[in-house]
């Protein structure tokens, strides 16, 4: 099942579903890359609240999306990692190095504002 991407102003919000396959993830990466360019987005939020398992491929793809979005001049934030998922991830050594994270969509939007606010002023 592919992840829907919502456009909200200059921000793209992708909601990852629980049953995302590796192919869906790759497709999400491609679509996000295209959409960031097409809509001149400044931020991407990937909401993984519904994800109950994060394997190494998913973690690597998310890091890839983060790096890719940064190359395109925008910021991406991963939100909604569940407590169990978070702990399982660090045990597997999947720490999403370099990706900003936030508790949920609300906090993610605030964090995005803050990051972009400092970038704009400083």
């Amino acid at each position, binding site marked *: 099942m592919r992840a829907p991407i919502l456009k909200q102003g200059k921000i793209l919000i992708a909601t990852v579903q629980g049953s995302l396959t590796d192919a869906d993830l790759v497709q999400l990466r491609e679509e996000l890359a295209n959409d960031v360019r097409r809509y001149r987005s400044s931020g991407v939020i990937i909401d993984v609240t519904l994800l109950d398992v994060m394997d190494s491929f998913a973690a690597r793809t998310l890091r890839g999306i983060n790096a890719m979005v940064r190359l395109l001049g925008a910021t991406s934030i*991963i*939100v909604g*990692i*569940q*407590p*169990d*998922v*978070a*702990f399982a*991830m*660090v*045990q597997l050594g999947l*720490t*999403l190095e370099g990706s900003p*994270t*936030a*508790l949920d969509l609300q*906090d*993610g939007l605030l*964090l995005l504002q803050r990051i972009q606010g400092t970038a704009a002023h400083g």
Partner: protein
Amino acid sequence: MDQQSPAMSDSPYGDVLEIGEEELAQRKAFLQFGDADVAALTGINDVARRYAGTVIEDFYAHLLAFEDTRAFFADPQVLQHVKNMQKEYFLRLTQGNYDLAYTQNRLKVGTIHERLGLPIKSYLGMYNFYLRNVAAKLIEAYDKQPAQAWSSFLSLMKLTFLDMGLAIDTYVYARERTVREQQEAIQDLPTPVLPFREGLLIVPIIGMIDAQRARQLTQQLLSSIRANRAKVVIIDITGVQTVDTRVANHMVQTVEAARLMGATVIIAGVSPEIAQTMVTLGIDLGRIATVGDLQNGVEMAEQLSGYKVTRTENPPPHSS
């Protein structure tokens, strides 16, 4: 010693180790204890009954000759009672039917001795004395058929080792239960998660952290980050004496997991001992914010979340 009243020893002693049919069969197979042994043992039942009195007397004479074991039989009434029990036990060895009821009885006997605090060394020593004493009696009874004496003795030895195995199991079981109970007690130590400003939590940890408690702490911490929408968490480890590699690594993982959930963790109150241990163990806390004490931790947390605390010029007078 009054624990050994007949009523008590007949009733099950609370939770006692259980041995199943299959386990018993395995134990017998390992000792190569078969029908021939049962026949041999029931065959010497007459001899056992003939010598029971002397064997038991010798047995207690031996026990009473040593300080360690004498202490258990100070009361003559008690002594008489245990002698009777011992005789029953001794005769049971040659009465066949070495079934689950038999093992249950042996386990109960083992548990009674464990509760009394009889050391394993004395327990095994008693078995050894039994075997040597009975061997002498068998040779005497079968002086014309030494081969038969020897083979019945071997059968008896197998059965005795079965009993010894059961007895030691009761000791091991009791200790395991103690360890389990202590672990449960430690787990029940509450670790409160205290919200002290919006989005700020303090988690004071007191006492010993083992792997299990560390795991539990992590779960509790990560779910309270979610429940309180926490941005910064201060873990205060002033009350923690020691940290081993596993626990330290676990702590590092917890901090990383909290970051994945969008929260920053500050570790406060690292004692000089723990700091040294961490360095010696080569644990890298480089990416984790650590501060000396809780005050520094609170200040850092406030700074991170944009709080600015100032003292007013004229504090209001205390109402008390």
